[in-house]
């Protein structure tokens, strides 16, 4: 890598079902201004802007970065627009980091958003391919069979997903920006919530949110001058595989395993569970926590559910997962990946507020998208590597 990169500012919006108080412009500015304020910088300090979001059809604007350029202070600057399905928030942060690591820019603003209330995300995610059977409704319809397959393979107890949801919903109560908050949430409330896509219950599912996330990334010198602790980017990785072909393991995808392997090699990590203090991973349906714990190498294959079951992934466990409440609590799709990356950064900066993991020095941010086929992840640390 030519240059080191660090996160020196983080911002996000309130996430809600319908942010009717703001336009798309207002939404991205809310997050961007908070990130700039956190970095103690202004628009003129920024060299380039990298924006990401999921499908343009969600808001009905083709390449909306073009009209958002004015509001994001891009005039006369380079602006890039990333779209890698659900992993896009993570990929966007990685592209922004690359601009710094390449030595091309010193300070880059990266923003991601989705204003899902402009359309109906569930049906927008119900993709009917030409010449193929339309057999699923919404993302849950696609992922439920994969979860069923995981349950069969791992022989995980049936209530594992409920336990994940309970943990994430309790964490969300500590997060002022979280969309879904159920102050009295308990095991029985989740267990008795309606079954949406068997085995996924209503309260084991992510919401559809309006929201945005932003970060300011910088090279070494501005990072060392920042008054708040920067989060140093130790490693990034992205991997992609095709949606379907005979023999593809959709439950434990090779692309995820390869990305993690590449990431750990770059970050010098040989034992992720010991060397990583906490992780914020993309869990839109509760059961994906144990599935990704295995895919990421935190647990041997078939045993991820044990970590959940034993409480290891709780905020006070030995491997806290989704301290912010995760995707289950806020899901503006285009921003969901960046929210994971930003939470990892805030943890090692000591800026995670009530959901801070004591002494977090190394954290992982993770996102996935498409049919469990796009992966982007990074490791950030309190110290430069």
């Amino acid at each position, binding site marked *: 890598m030519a240059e080191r990169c660090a996160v020196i500012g983080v911002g996000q919006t309130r996430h809600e079902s319908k942010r009717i108080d703001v336009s*798309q412009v207002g939404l991205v500015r809310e997050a961007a201004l908070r990130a700039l304020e956190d970095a103690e910088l202004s628009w003129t300090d920024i060299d380039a802007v990298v924006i990401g979001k999921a499908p343009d059809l969600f808001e009905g604007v083709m390449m909306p970065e073009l009209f958002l350029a004015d509001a994001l202070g891009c005039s006369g600057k380079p602006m890039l627009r990333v779209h890698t399905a659900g992993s896009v928030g993570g990929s966007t942060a990685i592209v922004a980091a690359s601009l710094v690591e390449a030595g091309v820019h010193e300070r880059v603003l990266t923003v991601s958003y989705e204003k899902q209330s402009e359309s109906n995300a569930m049906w927008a995610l119900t993709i009917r391919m030409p010449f193929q059977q339309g057999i699923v409704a919404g993302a849950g319809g696609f992922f439920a069979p994969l979860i069923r397959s995981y349950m069969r393979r791992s022989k995980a107890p049936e209530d594992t997903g409920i336990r994940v949801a309970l943990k994430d919903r309790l964490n969300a109560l500590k997060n002022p920006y979280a969309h879904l908050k159920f102050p009295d949430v308990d095991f029985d409330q989740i267990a008795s919530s309606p079954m949406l896509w068997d085995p996924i219950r209503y309260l084991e599912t992510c919401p559809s949110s309006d929201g945005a996330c932003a970060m300011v990334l910088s090279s070494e010198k501005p990072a060392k001058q920042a008054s708040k602790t920067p989060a140093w980017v130790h490693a990034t990785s992205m991997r992609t595989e095709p949606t379907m072909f005979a023999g593809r393991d959709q439950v434990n995808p090779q692309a995820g395993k390869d990305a993690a392997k590449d990431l750990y090699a770059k970050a010098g990590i040989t034992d992720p569970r010991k060397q990583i203090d906490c992780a914020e991973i993309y869990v839109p349906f509760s059961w994906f926590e144990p599935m990704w714990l295995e895919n990421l190498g935190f647990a041997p294959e078939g045993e991820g559910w044990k970590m959940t079951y034993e409480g290891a992934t709780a905020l006070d466990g030995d491997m806290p997962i989704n301290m912010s409440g995760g995707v289950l609590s806020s899901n503006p799709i285009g921003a969901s990946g960046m929210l994971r990356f930003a939470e990892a950064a805030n943890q090692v900066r000591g800026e995670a507020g009530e959901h801070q993991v004591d002494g977090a020095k190394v954290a992982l941010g993770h996102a996935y998208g498409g049919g469990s086929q796009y992966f982007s992840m990074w490791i950030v640390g309190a110290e430069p590597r």
Partner: protein
Amino acid sequence: MRDVAILSFAQTPYKRRESERTEVQMVLSVVTDAVEKSGLPKSDIGFTCSGSSDYLAGQSFAFVGAIDGLGAWPPIAESHVEMDGAWALYEAWIKIQTGMCNTALAFSFGRASMGSLPETLNMQLDPYTLGPLGIDSISMAALQARAWLDQDNHTERQMAEVAVRSRKNALNNPDAQLKGDFEVEKLLSEPYLIEPLHKHDCPPITDGANAVVIAAADAVPSGANPVWIRGIDHRIEPHQPGFRDLTQSPSTKLAGEKAGATRLDIAELHAPFTHQELILRDALGLDDDVRINPSGGALAANPMMVAGLTRMGEACREIWAGRAKRALAHATSGHCLQQNLVCVLEGD
């Protein structure tokens, strides 16, 4: 900065409607072709980046299917921009600069024939203040052309001359869609399409795909004929037409300066409308001895999301053919040249 070169370029023949092949088949053919010509084994490609728009296919996640045209197994390091392929190449170039990879593939595809392009591009406008006016992409360009004509004694004849030269140059380009020997007088006697634009001032609607392979100096295989990327930069301007002087292109000017656009033999300019070529030439300060769009440019084939990267490929083809040593390739995005990229290319 690492020295990075374009090793190969491939494109589909450009046509009004690709009815034989799906996007995946188009991608498969250009990617296979570009990788083969690069002299690198496919397994050596360190990073892949594509450019496309869901709005052309009219379907969310349209780019996901294109993965099938890559043979992404074992899994690959890959990214996608919802932009012209020229920006996919930029991201790939950045990735090589970080040292994370030494070679990369950039490709793009677009099938505008699936819908009604001028109306589709209305949805590219600010959805609160501009889009609802119902203005389409040709009308937006017409506003810009009117502003340009109202300045400095500019004439519709100058615009027609661009159309004639472009489509004449395209006669030598086997992949071009719209080519022929036209007469300025005759073109000017035709009725307006949207005043002050005649039909000849506008680009054709095009389906197509293209791909390039790039490599850092230490990864250029022996026997290759590298075209070096001497500089690359891109800039954006405000979206609201009232916030800009539509007769100028300051973002192109700035990108050209940053990319070191001097001492050029040719320039491949991504100017979908005739007056835009004249605005771009002015912004880049191109002399009369710089040959413009030997390929015919976007007036001869304008595959959306593809035509910018095509400019780089066509500039390389001129260099490979020995007709140029140093070339400029330009890409644009958005209405009225809102966003612009300039790349300076040089033969070995």
